[in-house]
């Protein structure tokens, strides 16, 4: 590529990056403003004294440590469930022959397009009947039964592994489950990581599920706690507090993202989530 073209491409990328990052900068700036400077004449100016106290104050407005504990538990169990169940199903669809397999797999793919809005109410009625409202069960349990997209990811991955390995295990007398557990699942580490990250993002950011199922504040997740904080403070609009709380809740997502971004971004781009 010519030098001038490369220069233009770089310039465009930098300008667009500024646009994409500006909201985060605005969030941080607001979170550090003292309450009397929210209505400032020059909104972009850094305040003379940074109000780090906002972060301390907002943590005292609501039991965020409880929210974080609950969310960590939900995220952990969901990841465990979805990795185990989706990899099992993915292996079954990738490697074991049984009648109707490919048609069933088409059905798995088709269910990706089903709107969850339809199952919301009947599922709620069902869990309410079981007496599971205001527990974590309705939020965690479905993750133990395979998610279509992750089954798809695991299946695609298992299909790329040469059959020799399994044949060798079979000759040694290993059962199908032993072959899967000892040989194939360890090989599928890249897929396990991808599924883990996607599930983290999904569960950490989920709002409708906790909103429907978790009533008492001691069970709330971070997302629910933050939303209710906004509701409680709405008429006073202390945007510096709300932004400070928002920054705090973004930290775990940012940590996970930066720990895995090289892997995640390049993984999706190069290994090709082939559509």
């Amino acid at each position, binding site marked *: 590529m010519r030098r001038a073209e*490369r220069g233009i*491409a770089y310039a465009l*990328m930098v300008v*667009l*990056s500024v646009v*994409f*990052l500006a*909201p*985060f900068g*605005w*969030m941080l700036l607001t979170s550090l403003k003292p309450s009397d400077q929210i209505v400032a004449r020059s*909104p972009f100016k850094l305040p003379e004294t940074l109000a780090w106290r906002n972060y301390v104050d907002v943590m005292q407005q609501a039991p965020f440590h409880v929210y974080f504990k609950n969310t960590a538990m939900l995220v952990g169990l969901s990841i465990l469930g979805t990795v185990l*169940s989706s990899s*099992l*199903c993915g292996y*079954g669809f990738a490697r*074991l022959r*049984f*009648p109707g397999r490919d048609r069933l797999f088409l*059905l798995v793919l088709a*269910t990706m*397009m*089903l*709107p969850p*809005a*339809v*199952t*919301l*109410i*009947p*599922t*709620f009625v*069902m869990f*309410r009947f079981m007496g599971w409202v205001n527990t974590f069960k309705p939020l965690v349990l*479905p993750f133990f*039964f395979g998610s279509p997209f992750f089954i798809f990811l695991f299946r695609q991955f298992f299909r790329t592994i040469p059959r020799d390995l399994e044949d060798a295990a079979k000759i040694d007398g290993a*059962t*199908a489950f032993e072959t899967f557990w000892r040989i194939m699942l360890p090989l599928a580490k890249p897929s396990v990581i991808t599924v883990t990250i996607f599930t983290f*993002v999904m569960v950490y*950011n989920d*709002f*409708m599920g906790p909103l429907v199922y978790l009533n008492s504040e001691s069970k709330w997740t971070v*997302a629910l706690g933050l*939303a209710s904080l*906004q509701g409680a403070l709405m008429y006073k609009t202390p945007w510096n507090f709300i*932004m400070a709380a*928002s920054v705090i*809740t*973004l930290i775990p*997502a940012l940590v996970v*993202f930066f720990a895995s*971004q090289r892997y*995640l*971004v390049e993984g*999706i781009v*190069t290994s*090709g*989530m*082939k*559509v």
Partner: protein
Amino acid sequence: MKRHNRLGRREALDGLLFISPWIIGFTCFGLGPYLFSIFLSLNRWDMMRPMVFEGFGNYRTMLAQDPLFWKSLWNTLVYTLLAVPAGLAVALALAVLLNQQVRGVWVFRTIFYLPAVVSGIAVLLLWKWIFNPDLGLLNALLRAMGMADPPGWLSSPFWAKPALAIMSLWGVGGAMLIFLAGLQGIPASLYEAATIDGANRVQRFLYVTLPMLSPVMFFNLVMGFIASFQVFMQAYIMTMGGPQDATMFYVLHLFFQAFRYFRMGYACALAWVLFLIILAVTLINFRVSKHWVYYEN
């Protein structure tokens, strides 16, 4: 021969065991609820008093007596037509830009993907603050650029939907990465052949990139429509359906019917109509795709 047969049966049994989590899950959390939902939609039920069978009463109410049904459908349609095409265009443009072989390009890929990962309530609150008519970032910038009377965004019935669509552009990172994967799958030989034939940059984009990318485009379009028809959280956190019901989207209406007014049967009927609409749009998409999506082989 017999032994072979037995091995085959053994493998089939193993296969079914392996996929049994999905079979159970699909029955309990998919098919079962779907069927139950049909039944509920034919009843009036507030979860306290016994159910009253109504036949198609809920559906009649919806079409004839619920102005919010039509309003929310319209709102959702407008939002979808604003957000999905614009989102695809932005995602594709970013992907083309980030497909350049320049050093450090992964840094930019990371930056554009970031908002898609850290979505959630915090980001919705952030945008609510950005859109604040008096003190928000957006209007501060517009005023600095000399606009005397910038829009009221989320507090204006006209601008609320475009504002949410603008916000959605910030989260196109996922679609962008899928486009990028598609771009990298296009063999370089095609571009070389086109260049030898005298195609310039624009022609190469129109006659090589776009056709080769059309299956990915189609995937993003179908998924974009399905997601956009179910827009909920944005409105619940940022506007509660206001101002003047301008952001009363379909699923928000459904949610309020179910969990605010406890009209479970009616909400199920709403859900089924949404399902049929999404099904119809998806089928139309597949039908139309035959005319513009290019598949090798």
